[in-house]
């Protein structure tokens, strides 16, 4: 187990971390490429950039936009995302690992904050799953992975919480730490290839919508003409 | 004014004072065995060392400061060059890190900062800053037994021969560095053979830059000659083709259009 832990903290971590970082860069570049291609081929080349930017910011900070409709769900979603980003990146123990290896680190979360945010994230994820099941529209649209993802994302949080805040025996600590590292690495590998890739693709979605899914006013007629059904209702 | 160091192997007691003085003078860091070092004590942070040989022979090893240095002639940017005082010094602002000097040195002296991401070539520079001021190098100053002394090269050669003449039973009748590969500014007299200080026991008296000189001198002739030959061949063939095709179609104009 010691060796497995050492391996997963060393080479396996580097492998999965590189897959995540480069994989995200890759999907971003491929997405941009396809956007440019679509833009190049588009008949109408005007893109409402101002609108795209405001919309993107609105979606990034969905206070105004979403709170109107499902305030509780959005609140939990917000909390979940905040915890998901802040805790792994600014956790003292994680930064210390970087510091040991690279010689520099970033400011860290205070102990109490880390504790609180971890608990909050776990509860928010639970609430999100329940909300997804209870809401008819959501559950109709959901795929299996939509239920699975919050659970998978929770594994490192729960195991990390056990390791960091609960005084467990030495052997139990090892086990939970191994689970913590391995589950996090599984997530790293999956991020660029699943819907979690929205962490970098999100800002592009508005551009995609405006470049690729834009129909000029006379589109209806043209389609009908092509289909030999001129004048038929669309 | 060619300055030099004469090391008398019979007088060296292996106290390493010269090594310590060199370290201090040149601000060299502590050294530890690294996997890329040669086992002769020299390294990027040790510019001089003392080899201990059987029967209490201690031989000081350092850059030989050749009169016609192979390293300086090899360096493509002239980062290594000989000063009027005879020291072969290194200008790290010119260096591009090709390490040809390390390949070219017949004594295997220059060392490299392999562990640095901005590495330089390192070797003894005969304490150039000191000898410019008229002082002697740190190592000769530190030597407690006068085993390694500093002075004008001609004087030191005389001293060396004088010592050999006075004590012919002790010394081997040879001043290492007097003629070898064109002469060096670091001379040795010894009671044992010092062939192990270089890659080959006998290096001859021809300076190494002179081995490349014929090839380098031939460069302009090769350049112009090749051009002339090629142009000539082309002219002949073109003419022949035009002659042969005068009655027929027009000759190819040389493009692939």
């Amino acid at each position, binding site marked *: 187990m010691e060796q497995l832990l050492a391996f997963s903290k060393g080479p396996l971590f580097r492998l999965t971390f590189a897959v995540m970082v480069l994989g995200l860069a890759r999907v971003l570049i491929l997405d941009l490429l396809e956007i440019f291609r679509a833009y190049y081929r588009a008949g109408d080349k005007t893109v409402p950039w101002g609108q795209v930017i405001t919309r993107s910011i609105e979606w990034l900070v969905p206070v105004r936009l979403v709170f109107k409709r499902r305030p509780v769900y959005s609140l939990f979603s917000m909390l979940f995302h905040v915890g998901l980003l802040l805790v792994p990146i600014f956790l003292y123990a994680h930064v210390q690992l970087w510091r040991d290896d690279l010689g520099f680190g970033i400011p860290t979360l205070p102990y109490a904050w880390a504790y609180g945010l971890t608990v909050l994230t776990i509860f928010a994820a639970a609430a999100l799953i329940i909300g997804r099941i209870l809401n008819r529209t959501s559950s109709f649209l959901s795929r299996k992975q939509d239920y699975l993802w919050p659970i998978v994302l929770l594994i490192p949080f729960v195991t990390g919480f056990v390791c960091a805040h609960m005084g467990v025996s030495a052997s139990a600590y090892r086990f939970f730490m191994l689970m913590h590292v391995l589950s996090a690495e599984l997530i790293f590998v999956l991020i660029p290839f699943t819907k979690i890739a929205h962490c970098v693709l999100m800002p592009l979605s508005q551009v995609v919508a405006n470049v690729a899914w834009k129909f000029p006013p006379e589109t209806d007629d043209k389609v009908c003409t092509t289909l030999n059904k001129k004048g038929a209702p669309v | 004014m060619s300055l030099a160091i004469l090391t008398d192997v019979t007088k060296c007691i292996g106290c390493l004072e010269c090594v310590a003085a060199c370290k201090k003078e040149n601000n060299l860091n502590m050294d530890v065995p690294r996997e890329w070092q040669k086992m002769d004590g020299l390294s990027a942070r040790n510019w001089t060392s003392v080899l201990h040989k059987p029967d209490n022979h201690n031989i000081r090893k350092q850059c030989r400061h050749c009169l016609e240095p192979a390293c300086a002639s090899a*360096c493509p940017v002239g980062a290594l060059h000989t000063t009027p005082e005879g020291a072969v010094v290194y200008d790290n602002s010119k260096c591009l890190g090709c390490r040809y000097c390390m390949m070219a040195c017949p004594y295997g002296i220059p060392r490299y900062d392999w562990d640095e*991401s901005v590495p330089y070539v390192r070797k003894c520079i005969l304490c150039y800053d000191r000898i410019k001021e008229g002082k002697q190098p740190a190592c000769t100053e530190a030597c407690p037994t006068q085993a390694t002394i500093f002075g004008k090269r001609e004087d030191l050669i005389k001293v060396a021969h004088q010592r050999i003449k006075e004590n012919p039973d002790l010394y081997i009748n040879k001043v290492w560095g007097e003629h070898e590969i064109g002469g060096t500014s670091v001379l040795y007299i010894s009671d044992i053979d010092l062939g192990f200080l270089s890659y080959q026991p006998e290096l001859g008296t021809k300076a190494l830059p002179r081995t490349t000189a014929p090839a380098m001198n031939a460069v302009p002739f090769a350049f112009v000659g090749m051009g002339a030959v090629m142009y000539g061949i082309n002219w002949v063939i073109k003419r022949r083709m035009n002659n042969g095709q005068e009655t027929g179609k027009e000759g190819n104009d040389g493009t692939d259009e």
Partner: protein
Amino acid sequence: MVQMNRVQAVKTVLWSILGLTAAVGLTRFIFGLGATTNLSDATPWGLWIGFDVLSGVALAAGGFVITALFYVMRREEFHDFVKPAVLTAFLGYIAVVVGLLFDLGLPWNIWHMIIFWNPHSPLFEVGWCVMLYTTVLLLEFSPVPLEEFSRYAKIRTFLMKFRFPLILLGIMLSTLHQSSLGSLFLIMPFKLHPLWYSNILPVQFFVSAVALGFMMVIFESLVSHWLYIKDSETERIAKLGFIAAWVLFVYFLLRIGDIAFSGELGMIFTGTWEANLFIVEMLISVILPFIIFVVPRLRYNRKLQWVGSIMVVFGMVFNRINVGGLTMIRATGDIYLPSWMEIIVSMGVVSGAVLVFMFAIEKFHIWEERPRHPESNPYAPAAFDRSSGAWLGSPLLAASTRYSLAFVFAFAVGFALIPDNKIHSEGMDDIPVTRARGADTLFVDGNLNNFGVAFDHKKHEELTREGQACATCHHMNIPLDKNSGCWECHKKMFTVTDVFNHDWHASAGGAAIACDECHTPGQQRRAESAKNCEDCHRDLRVENTPIEVKAYLAPSYTDALHDICVACHLKKAVELADKPDLGLCPTCHGGETPENRRELYKYGQAARSLKPVVLPQVKKPE
């Protein structure tokens, strides 16, 4: 469809190699040459010079020999070889420069050759010629891509006007630097084996480069035609091979003649490994290919064309590597084997060049008939994933999806494989310390290299008796021990030892202590929030010892001993008027007289090797 699979499979492999190279290259530029290569002070030139530069330049000779044959000698039948050969040469030179950037210690100074001149140096001349020739090749080749863009037609016609002078200049420059690569080694008669060292090394390099140039054109034609499933020009290849065979013959005469001239012909059959290496090299680089391309029946055999050209390509690369370092082992005594990272970078540089070559073949008018390729065809049907049937996007997108995936995964694998111990040790040998031997007089020689100190333990004991006795030096009582010896904690000769074994304390097989038993619950678990060692190990520190224990990291053996001894000696040197030399190195190391030194040696076992001297530049533990 088969055709595309072959091209795409090759491209996927090449992109994977590039991914590995990127990971290794990053490490090389961040941590330096020592962390990634097996180069050493004894072997400062390795694979990157022997293969990437020496062989790379020779492999790119096809450009100038084919242009000489076609434009100067007017051998019209070789027309189809010209454009690919010039392209190969151009990419080859770019690859050489990129390979050189990896190898140079200060690659950002590569332009220094332009302003700092040393015309005596063959390398200076090579550098200039490579720069100029690469520019010439760019000008020679640029009409081909410019053909695609009608707005640049004027530039193209302008360049076409200067085609013949450019080609002449290219040939002249090639003559110079192909031969000057040989001149590089003229300065090392003391290193290079006599079977390879020769005064006409430049001429040999030039002639072999000409032969290799022809063979490389053949090889490149065979490979690219195999890749894009096209019939290759067996007949023209045979003709080209025939010319090359006679150049090889000239090269053979030059090699053997030179050896005979210097009277070393007997050396070939002495049976030393260098002699056998020479025989193997001559067989695969000259003799066998000469037979293949001279005998008419063999010459027209497609399979033998493959064999012959591959033999020359490998044989000449072998020759360059032999001259570039392999046969110097006898003189340097250092056996160099390239590390896997060096090999990966060399492969990556070639892969990059091949990818650009394939791109150019697909995009530009290099062959009479362009290879049909779905990636370059905007109207090709979209690709679908075979297993899921999912739409993969346009053919270009589908292809780039695949290649980028290969790149990403290969990069990750390379990143994971980087040996972190090699980077963190900074090349420091991890030498375990052996305890001092002896009784009243100890021979302190932790790494057993016989260069140590004869330490009169009894005398020092008596000297300090009035004070704290043992505690003066022995400052720790490690568990189950009292006044522990130096080597118990300072376990490594030159590197720091972690004395507190956290893993052991926390493991079930060790002390099996739960986290909260040491670390205060409700706080960050760090060293500061944990109990002190002395909370459990009551008498860890020796009482009244003047030595302060500050951290859980024990300094290296040499640092620790120098720290204790030198500090005290310096103090005593001032106090005791009759012993002013107490603070000097020879007092302990070596002593003033030859007899004293011999005394030192008496204690040692057989000398293993002479290691560098470590001087008492006392480093304080952090």
